[in-house]
């Protein structure tokens, strides 16, 4: 007789199970792309442009070819003979693989060298002579649309200017009416600066083309290997079954490892030409100046307010600087991602959003950096606007939010921009946060400190964000619908292997997916192996970014487990010699309803699937599931920060930070908290120090870790996390919601609002991030708003 199981003991849903992937990482036995060595492997290095915008007059590679150990020097002209000088992007644009006509940003790929070792390849790169004719440089949207601006994309037909798109959503007439009725109109403009996701591991690939079989295998740092396979099939004109993409362990992604980069394509082309494996490992500067940037959006908005504090409507205009190529990985329908999810947690009757994307002489940007397609810009702007509006009305910032939140009884709530927010408890989360931070007390302390010349401030940020694209009706990339998948094979002993179309880069799927299987089937999580990232074995999926793993692939894991359970039920009926209708399920066990002592375990059912199946039943116990979610998931979060600003230096210190995340059911609370703390740290980084920009010549400032400051253990404040509010997703099979990005999305505004609150008496409305000490000092001293838009100021 078998017994019902304690789910926590078998590592099921809600268990803070220790991570299985740690076993190799703590031993230094991870398998990252640079750890892989193939027989006969050569090494590739890329020569990058020092200029931001220049015509290439000539490229002379003869000296590079002379270096002993050099096997190939590849230029755009040579790539063009294979139709590979350009490649399509994930946003229906094209991007240069190796420049042929012009270079369009500093760091653009101009040529590459393959050699016996990477030192030789670098030496040879230095010996390639390129003659450039400089052209005028554009580093912001204002310059891009100015009269007489140089056309950056003169390679494209029908591109008479630097505008990529104009896009709008919402109800213009209704919004105009709301503004006509307003008592107060509050306005705010700001620039969400460019930022680089900057995982510690840079990008890289090893391409291995086997002439004998015609098969191309590429080991690479990709968050979305199946999308890469589709893209490679397109670019390299190879059939899909002859392409195998393998993402081994990935040293952090944060959206940076979604796009297709020229380096990957070059390594593939070089391997095809040389018929030997070619490894490319990017250096940090290459990563920072050429790969997927994020943000870089100018937001200008106004809010129609009634005197009692009710928001009547919002108008938003966004100018997005995409760099030289429009290569965002984002749903096709939404040119500016999900920016129109702004204000989704507030009950606002009318809204109108317009957006314009432009080219500039900067690396392609707009990737979803720890963010669901522009949601970070949306929520940052929303919370900065809410802060400004509350101030304009002379209302308490918490009270203003309470007044305008979507009420619990309004869910599902349709926003003015068309999203269906299905669940949440905004008021409750806010109260938990306010209590934790000691809101009223702090306001008193702040007043008291002010009387002694000290500047204390408190900043609130509250938001819900749409996580987990698709559904397939609205979400696709290049026409491929954004569903995801799982395949589960239960061996005869009841142990199992699970594969999904997602790809962990630190999220811990090997640990947490097994917990879902455990929850659905009662198989101990330790008995479930999880594999991802190999397109030859994993089912087709869209990969991991935009917090979509748990909402989509995680749901598929549930669904495939339920299919397995359905078959196991038939096997149980057979073993127990009763009809299926007479059988009940409890975790890990089927039993006879009328005789609960008579039961069989899931493991016994598994054995029967291979050794004792009923007549006519297909043997084996495996299945797959493709999951197309009915809606996004909508986690809600409250972040509250208190700071002290030193008026003499502009330096600000975090006194306290409280985070209340309602992300529905938590599969593994330990892992969820880890994700939140990581996100909060990136939020702090963006608000405080992470600064990458461009001068008037298009030189990237912040092109290495000496200049691009990431916080260390020394600067990073402590965080207090709260998990007591749980609103399950109404449609996700286990009630889970996305969470990995919430803190990075909602966090920055809390820090900035806190500093703005501290210096509230100056009347300064905005300081662009990062709030560097000199900016804060200047704002206090001169009582003026501080723009951080490029070109960067050069103080003489």
């Amino acid at each position, binding site marked *: 007789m078998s017994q019902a199981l304690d789910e926590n003991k078998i590592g099921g849903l809600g268990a803070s199970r220790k*991570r299985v992937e*740690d076993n190799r990482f703590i*031993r230094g036995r991870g398998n990252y792309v640079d750890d892989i060595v193939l027989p006969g492997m050569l090494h590739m290095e890329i020569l990058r442009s020092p200029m931001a915008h220049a015509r290439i007059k000539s490229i002379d590679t003869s000296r590079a070819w002379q270096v002993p150990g050099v096997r190939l020097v590849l230029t755009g002209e040579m790539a063009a003979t294979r139709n590979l000088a350009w490649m399509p992007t994930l946003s229906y644009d094209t991007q240069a693989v190796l420049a042929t006509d012009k270079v369009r940003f500093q760091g653009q790929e101009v040529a590459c060298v393959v050699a016996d070792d990477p030192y030789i390849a670098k030496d040879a790169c230095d010996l390639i002579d390129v003659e450039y004719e400089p052209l005028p440089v554009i580093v912001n949207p204002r310059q891009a649309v100015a009269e007489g601006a140089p056309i950056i994309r003169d390679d494209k037909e029908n591109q008479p200017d630097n505008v990529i798109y104009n896009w709008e959503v919402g109800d213009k007439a209704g919004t105009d009416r709301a503004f006509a009725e307003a008592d107060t109109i509050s306005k705010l403009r700001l620039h969400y600066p460019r930022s680089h996701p*900057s995982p510690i*591991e840079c990008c890289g690939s090893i391409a291995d083309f086997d002439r004998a079989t015609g098969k191309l295998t590429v080991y690479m740092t990709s968050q979305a290997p199946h999308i890469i396979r589709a893209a490679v099939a397109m670019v390299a004109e190879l059939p899909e079954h002859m392409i195998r993409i393998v993402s081994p362990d990935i040293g952090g992604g944060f959206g940076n490892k979604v796009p297709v980069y020229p380096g990957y394509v070059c390594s593939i082309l070089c391997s095809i030409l040389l018929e030997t494996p070619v490894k490319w490992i990017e250096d940090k500067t290459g990563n920072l100046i050429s790969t997927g940037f994020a943000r870089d959006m100018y937001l200008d908005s106004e809010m129609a307010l009634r005197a009692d504090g009710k928001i009547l409507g919002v108008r938003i205009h966004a100018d997005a600087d995409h760099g030289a190529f429009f290569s965002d990985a984002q749903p096709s329908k939404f040119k500016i991602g999900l920016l129109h999810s702004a204000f989704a947690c507030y009950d606002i009757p009318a809204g109108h959003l317009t957006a314009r994307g432009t080219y500039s002489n900067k690396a392609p940007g707009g990737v979803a950096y720890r963010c669901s397609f522009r949601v970070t810009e949306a929520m940052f702007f929303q919370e900065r606007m809410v802060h400004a509006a509350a101030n304009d009305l002379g209302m308490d910032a918490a009270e203003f939010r309470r007044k305008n939140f979507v009420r619990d009884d309004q869910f599902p709530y349709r926003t003015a921009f068309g999203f269906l927010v299905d669940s949440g408890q905004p008021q409750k989360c806010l109260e938990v946060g306010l209590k934790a931070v000691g809101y009223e007390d702090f306001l008193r302390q702040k007043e008291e400190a002010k009387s002694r010349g000290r500047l204390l401030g408190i900043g609130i940020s509250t938001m819900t964000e749409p996580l987990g694209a698709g559904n397939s009706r609205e979400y696709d990339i290049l026409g491929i619908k954004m569903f995801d998948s799982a395949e589960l094979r239960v061996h005869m002993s009841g142990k199992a292997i699970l594969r999904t179309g997602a790809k962990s880069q630190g999220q811990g799927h090997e640990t947490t997916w097994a917990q879902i299987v455990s929850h659905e089937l009662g198989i101990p999580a330790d008995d479930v192996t999880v594999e991802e990232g190999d397109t030859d074995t994993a089912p087709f999926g869209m990969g991991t970014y935009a917090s979509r793993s748990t909402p989509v692939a995680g749901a598929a894991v549930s669904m495939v487990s339920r299919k397995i359970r359905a078959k196991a039920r038939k096997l149980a009926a057979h073993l127990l010699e009763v009809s299926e209708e007479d059988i009940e399920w409890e975790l890990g066990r089927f039993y006879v309803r009328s005789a609960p002592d008579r039961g069989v375990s899931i493991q016994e059912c598994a054995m029967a699937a291979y050794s004792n199946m009923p007549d006519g039943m297909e043997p084996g116990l495996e299945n797959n599931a493709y999951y197309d979610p009915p809606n996004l998931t909508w986690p809600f979060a409250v972040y509250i920060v208190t700071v002290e600003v030193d008026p003499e230096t502009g330096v600000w210190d975090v006194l306290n930070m409280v985070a209340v995340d309602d992300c529905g059911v938590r599969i593994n609370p330990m892992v969820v908290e880890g994700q939140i703390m990581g996100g909060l*740290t990136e939020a702090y980084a963006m608000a405080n120090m992470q600064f990458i920009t461009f001068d008037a010549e298009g030189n990237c400032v912040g092109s290495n870790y000496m200049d691009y400051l990431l916080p260390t253990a020394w600067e990073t404040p402590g965080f207090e996390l709260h998990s007591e509010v749980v609103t399950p997703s109404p449609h996700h099979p286990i009630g889970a919601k996305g969470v990995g990005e919430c803190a990075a999305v909602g966090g920055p505004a809390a820090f900035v609002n806190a500093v703005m609150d501290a210096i509230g008496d100056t009347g300064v409305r905005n300081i662009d991030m990062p709030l560097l000490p000199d900016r804060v000092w200047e704002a206090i001293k001169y009582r003026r708003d501080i723009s951080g838009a490029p070109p960067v100021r050069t103080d003489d």
Partner: protein
Amino acid sequence: MTIVHEERTDTGAGIPENRITVTVNGKRSVVECEPRLLLSHLLRQGLRLTGTHMGCDTTNCGACTVLVDGRPAKSCTMLAVQADGREVTTVEGLATASELHPLQEGFKEEHGLQCGFCTSGMMMAAKALLDENPDPTEEEVRWALSGNLCRCTGYQNIVKSVLWAAKKLRSE
């Protein structure tokens, strides 16, 4: 064993090879290398100890931290020839065949890692601290790790992991 070298018509590079002796994780090796070879490359490619990772090339991220004669060093900005006659310990030298080092246990217990890329360097920097100071404060841990960057975890759990290990080491 046989080593076959491809014949090169031009050996014009003329880079001298240096012969050094280095002890890594207790094992002495004789190495012939160019003087410009980075210690990190010697470890990763020459000795196939790939647990030492390279993140930034500029001594900022600390992913490549190893111990040289017991002191933490960023192996991406140290030449292999500088390790001549010295003892190097990498992450692979932390555990014995049967037992994990308390730091390794601590990082797993306290969820001090996510993608794992910075972890080796974090643990080696932490080992250098704990070897000198078995009972550090949280602030001392934070300072000792301030040469190491992590993008995933937010440090709070890394600090806890090190304190966990310190406690365990003291009780041993």
